């Protein structure tokens, strides 16, 4: 028995040794496999492009934005604020940022507030995906970047968001809100379509198919097909999709609707006096426009009212509600007469 056991012990000793070596090997493999240093390669190549190959790579770069988020996009997009690397000839990710939105850069809003993606990630695949998913974010470039404008601006408020405005008009024009109202509970609508504010996880192809042939994705769908509406102008279909994408976006720092957003961005406290029951625009000067009420989560007072706090006004008469409001109503009401506007 003794010799048999000692033989077994010797075998187990060898097995232990072999297992330890396997563990060390697997450990090294796992460490190499799990580390992702793609950004180091990009930084080295950037040195070659700018003609300073010997320069020490800067390492992980991050932008702490005024909204409290952190974007590490500049680790690879190294030339965003340089003027000498503009234009489509420069390969990505080394191209500088188009200067149309220099205002945003100045205020350090960061990248992901408009372009989406996962700002804290360092691998291109994750960084360009929507947070927590593997779906590529559509707002990385034209034309879907226009959807992001709606996070702070009402459609048509500023130049550069024409496609979004066209989509918003289509939403009203085609009667989408009868089944897909943007208020919960369906203000006068039937509210039996899916909530359009939650399509974030669906791909563009899915949304497009749902518009052209609603039964393609869900056989029991009773939604009418809208392919006739988009037949002649395929651009309109894309406009609609831009608008749909914009609906699933929240306001930066959103949480309490209008009030919170206006407070954080403008420093005004309009809704202290003008708040409706749930903190939405209303109160003394309750908005009657259905579109405004439906969009309450997406708007702040200053998008229409110049963004001045009540304290800065000289008297009641200079309250800009009436004139400013009228001036901005053209956004929806210049050609089409939908809903019960003022």
């Amino acid at each position, binding site marked *: 028995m003794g010799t048999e*056991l000692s033989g077994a012990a010797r075998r187990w000793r060898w097995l232990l040794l072999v297992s330890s070596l396997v563990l060390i090997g697997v*450990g090294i493999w*796992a460490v190499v496999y799990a580390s992702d240093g793609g950004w180091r390669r990009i930084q080295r190549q950037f040195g070659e492009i700018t003609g300073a190959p010997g320069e020490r790579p800067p390492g992980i770069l991050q932008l702490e934005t005024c909204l409290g988020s952190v974007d590490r996009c500049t680790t690879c997009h190294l030339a965003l604020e340089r003027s000498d690397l503009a234009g489509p000839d420069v390969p990505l990710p080394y191209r500088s940022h188009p200067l149309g939105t220099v205002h945003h850069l100045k205020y350090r809003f960061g990248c992901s507030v408009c372009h989406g993606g996962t700002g804290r*990630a360092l691998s291109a695949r994750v960084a360009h995906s929507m947070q*927590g998913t593997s779906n590529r974010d559509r707002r990385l470039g034209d034309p879907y970047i226009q959807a992001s404008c709606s996070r702070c601006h009402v459609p048509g408020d500023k130049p550069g968001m024409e496609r979004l405005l066209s989509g918003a008009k289509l939403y009203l024009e085609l009667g989408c809100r009868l089944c897909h109202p943007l208020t919960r509970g369906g203000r006068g609508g039937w509210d039996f379509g*899916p909530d359009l504010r939650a399509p974030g996880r669906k791909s563009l192809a899915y949304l497009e198919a749902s518009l052209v042939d609603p039964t393609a994705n869900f056989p*029991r769908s009773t939604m009418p097909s809208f392919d006739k509406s988009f037949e002649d102008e395929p651009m309109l279909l894309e406009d609609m999709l831009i608008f749909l994408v914009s609906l699933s976006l929240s306001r930066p720092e959103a949480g309490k609707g209008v009030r919170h957003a206006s407070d954080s961005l403008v420093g005004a406290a309009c809704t202290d006096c003008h708040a409706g029951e749930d903190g939405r625009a209303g109160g003394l000067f309750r908005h009657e426009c259905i579109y405004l009420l439906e969009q309450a989560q997406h708007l702040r007072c200053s998008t229409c009212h110049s963004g001045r706090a009540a304290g800065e006004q000289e008297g009641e008469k200079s309250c800009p509600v009436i004139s400013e409001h009228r001036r901005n109503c053209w956004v929806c009401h210049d050609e089409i007469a939908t809903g019960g506007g003022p």
Partner: protein
Amino acid sequence: MSRFLSSLARNLRSLPGNLIGDLRPRAGSADDNIARRMRRNFIYHLHPVSVTRRALNPLTTLGLGVITVTLFFVLCVTGILLMIYYVPTTRQAYSSMQDIEYAVTLGRFVRALHRWAAHGMVVTVLLHLVRVISMGAYRGRELNWQLGLGLCLLMLGMAFTGYLLPWDQRSFWAVSVTASMLDGTPAIGGAVKSLLLGGERIGQATLLRFYTLHVALLPASMLVILALHLWRIRRDGGLARPPSVTGEAPSVPAWPHLVLREGVIVLWVLIALAVWAALVQAPLGIPVDPHTPSNPEKAPWYFIWIQEMVSYSEVTGAFVFPGVLMTWLVALPFVEREDEGVGRWLAGRSCRRAVAVSVLVAIGALVACEALYIGAHSEASPLPSAAGWPDLLNPSAAMIVLAIVVAFVSGLWTGSTRAACLSGFFVMLVAMLGFMLVGLCRGPDWVFYLPWEEWPIGY
């Protein structure tokens, strides 16, 4: 001067030898063997000096205890590493998780190790429990059995508290739905819930409480009870063994024979875990949105059987079924005191047959109950509607009744208390696993969808 230099040179020359020799424990003046034993005294404290040959056979325990302890220590080490970066505030929790996942060197690997070790531990603890029950190994080890049950509950508590910490949509709503199960517990449910959540809803107070529980209170308690659990194995005379072997003196020295085998198991657990964690990332969901619940809101898989039962009835699901199961397990070593067959898998022909029949009956009954219940609650089915059914008429209540009936029938049939207790336990085990499977198949609005059926649009 020259003497100083020469002795310095001599000491430096002999440095390599002394570096190893001096750090070794000194062999006393007594014989060398004792010194060697003293060096290994930690191992001698964990194990008896000698064990039976049976303890060396991997089939005796399947190594489940060793695997579980290994996973526990992996969880401790990786957990401490994660604590360095994790910030338990509602504003920063998800961001710090993203940092760990995307920016921290090897953070993703460490987090995956932690997550998969935790899931693995839930599985091995359950299997360990089933192994001990099947062998009747609680007999004569009543205290250690209760300690083990305590460890099992603490582990579930760890899993539950850890699930919230990533603060993503999935974890937020999973914990929210699990906490709301407490509403079904009469009398103390509401108080326990507000003690746990630090308020009515999940918020900053909840996150901090869960964090403290997860990194300090629960692991410390687990460590203490684990030490007692391991110590009691030795005090109770090693592994449970059949009476035929009881007379045989433990003849094999634990070192090296048992310890080497355990070492190999530990290493292969680590190897498998490292490969798995490197290949499969731990999921990090979309950022939390406390205003928009995902539909369906699902508890983590190891609690989903309770959620499934709560969807039938809060009382039976959250209170009666878990209560009966826990009572059954706690009372087991006192109700069942047969010495025959201890240490063998479902020892005795009648026990094996009784358990096999009970499992088959339980599977049949469960499928029938679920088909009837789901059918009666679906609009499309030809079965009469369940609208008028009383709340207590549901599959979980049926399975409890079945477990008690099966236990009595099997006891009367075989004349053995062990066969009776085990039959009842296995009926409840089948119910647990069955409800887990049904719960995993639930879709939006808690409607049952077969795995290949498509969920409606928009979810």
